[in-house]
C-alpha cells in the first residue's frame, strides 16, 4: 500500500509545471555511473491487512513476552496507567518535531519544563535537560561533562555498574580519549556509582561522595528514578550529576527501547550540560511562555565547539514519564517503590528456602531485585514453564556461574511469586 496521494492528473499537471515529461527525468542530474539500474531486491508492497498479519506473526513468535516477568537488569515490568496510554496516542505528541518554532510548540516546551522540574524533584538536583537517548549514553555523557568541568582526565566506574552501561562508557572513553581507572586519585574527573547496583543492592552514595569530593572529583550517581519515591534523592547525598534510564517511569520494556536517559546536575554545571534545555521566557506583551534556552552549548549553533553532538533526543518518552509521574503523584510513586520492595523480599525469602538456592550477596541490602545462585542453569527451563527471570550473570561475571537476577515489581502478585517458587522447585527436582 502507498501513502502517496497523487492522481495521474496531479502528476501530469505538476510535471508540466516543472517542464518535464516523467518522474524519472527528475533524477537526470544523478550521474548514470552510480544510478541503480534495477528494482530493489525486496518484496513487493503489502496491503494493510497483510502487513498486520505479518507483524502479528512475528510478535507471536516472542514467547518470552507472554511469560510472567521477573526479569530485571535495568528494564522493569511496571504498571502503565490507562490514562497515560490513552494520552500518548494523540497525534500532536507523536507527529510534531523539535520545538524550533516556539509559538506553535508551547505544549512541547511546557511539558519539557515540567519534565525537567520532575527530574530535579526526584534527584534532588537543580537543573535537568530535556532527555538523552538512554541511561547508558547519559552515563557516558556525564563522564564527558565531568572532564570538561574539572579539567581532569580520568573516570572511575564503580564495580556494580550495569555491565552494558560499562561497555558503552568504554566505547565513548575510547572515542573521546579518556582513561578509565580503578581508583580515585588527584587525576579523577568523576567517580560514577549506581545508587542501586546491577545486582539490586543498595549502595552507600554518601560514602562515595566523600571519596570523590576528598579527591576533588565529581560524583556521578546512576539511579532508577522509579525508586526515588522511597530512596533518598542522590542530590541530598552529595551527587554532582545524576543520570539514569527512564524506562521504569511508565514506558513499556519494548525489547530495550525506546526509553530515555535523564541528566540532572547542579546549576553551576549547566553551561557544560549536553542536550536541549527549556526555560521560561516572555513575549513582547509580557505573556509567559517557554523556549529552548542556553543553546550556545549545542551543535546547531556551536558546530565543532558544542558540548555534545546530540540533536534528536527522546522527547516523546520524556512525555510518557511526565504523564506517569503526574498520575502517580508522590504517594503513588512511594507505593510503587514500597510494593516492589516488599514483594522482592517475600520472593527472596521463599526462593532461598529451596535446596541449593541462595542469595549471591547475602550481606548486602537489596531493593526490588536480587542475584540468586542455583545449582545449575535455570533461566531456560523456567521460561519453558512460563516464568521469565534473568539475565543470567555469567555472560559478564564468570565467577557468578549459574547465578541470575530476579526482579519483582508492584505488578507481581503473591500468587505469581508462589508460582515462580513452585516452578523453580520443579526445575531443580
Amino acid at each position: 500500500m502507498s501513502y502517496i496521494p497523487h492522481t495521474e492528473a496531479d502528476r501530469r499537471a505538476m510535471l508540466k509545471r516543472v517542464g518535464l515529461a516523467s518522474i524519472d527525468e527528475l533524477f537526470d542530474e544523478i550521474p548514470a555511473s552510480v544510478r541503480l539500474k534495477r528494482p530493489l531486491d525486496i518484496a513487493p508492497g503489502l496491503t494493510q491487512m497483510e502487513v498486520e498479519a505479518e507483524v502479528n506473526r512475528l510478535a507471536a513468535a516472542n514467547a518470552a513476552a507472554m511469560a510472567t516477568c521477573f526479569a530485571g537488569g535495568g528494564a522493569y515490568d511496571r504498571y502503565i496507567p490507562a490514562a497515560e496510554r490513552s494520552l500518548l496516542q494523540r497525534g500532536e505528541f507523536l507527529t510534531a518535531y523539535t520545538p524550533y518554532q516556539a509559538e506553535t510548540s508551547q505544549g512541547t516546551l511546557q511539558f519539557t519544563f515540567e519534565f525537567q522540574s520532575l527530574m530535579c524533584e526526584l534527584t534532588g538536583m537543580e537543573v535537568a535537560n530535556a532527555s538523552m537517548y538512554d541511561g547508558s549514553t547519559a552515563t557516558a555523557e556525564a563522564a564527558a561533562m565531568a572532564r570538561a568541568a574539572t579539567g581532569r582526565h580520568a573516570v572511575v566506574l564503580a564495580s556494580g555498574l550495569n555491565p552494558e552501561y560499562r561497555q558503552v562508557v568504554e566505547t565513548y572513553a575510547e572515542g573521546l580519549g579518556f582513561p578509565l581507572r580503578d581508583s580515585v586519585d588527584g587525576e579523577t574527573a568523576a567517580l560514577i556509582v549506581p545508587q542501586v547496583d546491577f545486582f539490586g543492592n543498595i549502595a552507600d552514595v554518601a560514602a562515595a561522595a566523600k571519596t570523590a569530593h576528598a579527591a576533588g572529583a565529581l560524583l556521578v550517581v546512576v539511579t532508577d528514578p522509579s525508586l526515588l519515591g522511597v530512596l533518598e534523592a542522590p542530590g541530598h547525598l552529595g551527587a554532582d550529576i545524576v543520570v539514569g534510564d527512564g524506562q521504569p517511569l511508565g514506558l513499556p520494556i519494548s525489547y530495550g527501547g525506546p526509553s530515555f536517559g535523564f541528566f540532572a546536575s547542579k546549576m553551576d554545571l549547566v553551561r557544560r550540560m549536553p542536550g536541549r534545555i527549556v526555560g521560561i521566557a516572555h513575549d513582547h506583551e509580557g505573556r509567559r511562555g517557554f523556549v529552548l534556552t542556553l543553546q550556545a552549548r549545542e551543535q546547531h549553533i556551536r558546530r565543532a565547539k558544542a558540548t555534545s553532538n546530540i540533536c534528536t533526543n527522546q522527547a516523546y518518552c520524556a512525555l510518557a514519564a511526565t504523564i506517569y509521574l503526574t498520575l502517580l503523584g508522590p504517594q503513588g510513586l512511594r507505593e510503587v517503590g514500597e510494593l516492589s520492595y516488599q514483594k522482592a523480599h517475600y520472593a527472596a525469602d521463599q526462593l532461598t528456602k529451596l535446596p541449593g538456592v541462595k542469595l549471591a550477596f547475602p550481606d548486602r541490602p537489596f531493593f526490588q531485585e536480587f542475584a540468586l545462585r542455583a545449582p545449575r542453569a535455570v533461566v531456560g527451563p523456567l521460561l519453558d514453564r512460563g516464568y521469565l527471570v534473568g539475565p543470567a550473570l555469567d555472560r559478564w561475571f564468570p565467577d557468578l556461574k549459574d547465578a541470575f537476577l530476579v526482579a519483582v515489581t508492584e505488578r507481581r502478585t503473591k500468587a505469581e511469586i508462589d508460582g515462580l517458587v513452585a516452578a523453580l522447585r520443579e526445575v531443580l527436582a
Partner: protein
Amino acid sequence: MSEPLIFDRSVPGRRAVTFPASDVPATPLPPGTRKAPPALPEVSELDAVRHFTRLSESIYSIDKGFYPLGSCTMKYNPKLNDVAASLPGFAGLHPFSPEGGSQGALELLWQLEHILCEVAGMARFTLEPAAGAHGELTGMLITRAYHRHRGDDAKRRKVLIPDSAHGTNPATAAGLGYEVVEVASDARGGVDVAALRAACDDSVAALMLTNPNTLGLFDEHIDEIAAIVHGAGGLLYYDGANANAIVGRVRPGDMGFDIVHFNLHKTFSTPHGMGGPGAGPVGVVESLVPYLPVPLIARGDGRYSWRWDLPHSIGRVRAGYGNFGVLVRAFTYILANGRDGLEDISGHAVLNANYLLARLGELFDVPFDRRCMHEFVVSAKSLKAKTGVRALDIGKAILDRGMHAPTVYFPLVVEEAMMVEPTETETLEVLDAYADAMAAIVAQAERDPESLHAAPISTPVGRMDEATAARKPIVRWTGEAAN
C-alpha cells in the same frame, strides 16, 4: 489564556492512580529512605487528562497540517506502524529474554537489517544507534578503528566536512578529537572539487557528506569526490539525513561511500515525537564489518541469535539493541511500501519539491538555478533589501496562516535561507495553498512590512524574548508561581 504548570494545579491529598494493598508479609524498609517526598503534583485523573490534552492542542503537528521543515522529512506517519509497535509480543518483550523466546524480534531485526543493506548498498548494518547524530558517532568510531587497525590513526587527524553540512557532523568529528576542515561549496552548490583535492592528503581520516546536500542538490561530481578521498586513503561517510530523495534510485554504496547512517524517523516515517525517539542505524561495506558495534544478529539452521565475538568491534554504543519500537515501525512501513513503493517515495518527494520550488521561485531568490531533489533552499535576500522583511518574519507569518515555517537560516552558505521539504505525502492542493500563502505574505511585505515584524499574532504567545531567558535561565519549577 495559558495553561498553568501542572504543579500549580496540585492540591495535597488529590490522587489519580492507586495500587493494590500489599499481599505479602511486610519487611521493614532499609535505612536511608527519603526524608521528604519529592514534590510531584497531586491531581485527579481528569485534571491530568485535561492538562495534557490542552498542552497537545498548542502543538503544531503533521496530523494537523503541512510541515515542510527542511531536512527533517516531516511526512505522514502511518498509524499502522504505531499499532505494530504496541503489540504485546513486541512492547512486552524484555531485552534480556533468552533468544529462544524472542525469535520473532530477532527475525524482524534481521529482515530490517537486510532491507537497509539493499537500500544502501552496504554489507551489514548495526541497528543500535538511537538517532542520526548517534549514528554519526558510531560511524566515526568505526572510521577511527579502521585507521587504527591499519596503524594509520596517528597521522589521520582531519575530517573534511562541506560548509553546507548539518551541525552534528562537525560536532561529532570534533568531539572525537578530529580536526574539522571545512570544504567550500562551488558555484553549483556542490563540493568544490579543487578545494577538496587541495585539502586531501594522508592526514585525512574521512569526508562526511550529505548527498543530496542540505541545499537539496545532488552532487554531480560524486564519482570524482569518492576517487579523491579514497586515493588519499580516507573513508567516505554518508549522512543519510536526505535519503528520502534517493531511495530506490541510487545507493550510497554505489556512489562510493563506505559508511552510511539512515534516520529512520525521516526516510522510514517513524514519528518524530516532538524530538525523538529516532533511530540511526549504520551500514558499512564488507571491509568495515569487523568494527561494527556488538552485538550483531546471526542466522543459522533457521534460528536467529546474537553474536558477541567480534574482536575488532568498537564496542557497544547503547544498552540493549537500539530503539526497538522505532525499528518495528520502520519495518512495518517498509513492508507496506515494498520495492515499488519505496521508489515512488523518492519520485514523488522530488516531484513535490520541484513543483513547490517552481512556485516559490517566483516569489524569492533561488540561489542555485538547478533541479532540486527532495528539498530546496530559497532566499529572502532581495525581499529584505526591498522591504526589511526577513526569512524569520516570513517563517513567523506562515504560522499565522495555519502552516509550519520552513527551516530558516540554514544552511549557513545561503543568506536569509528558507529550506523547504514538502515530502511525498502532501497533495497538490496543499502545495498550492502553501505557495498562495507565501505569495500573500510577500504582498503584505511590500504593502505593510511592519505588520510582519509582529507576526505571529494568532498563536498562544508571540515572539519570545530568548536573550533574557538565556541570561537569567529559569529551567525548573521551584514552588513559586511562574507567570
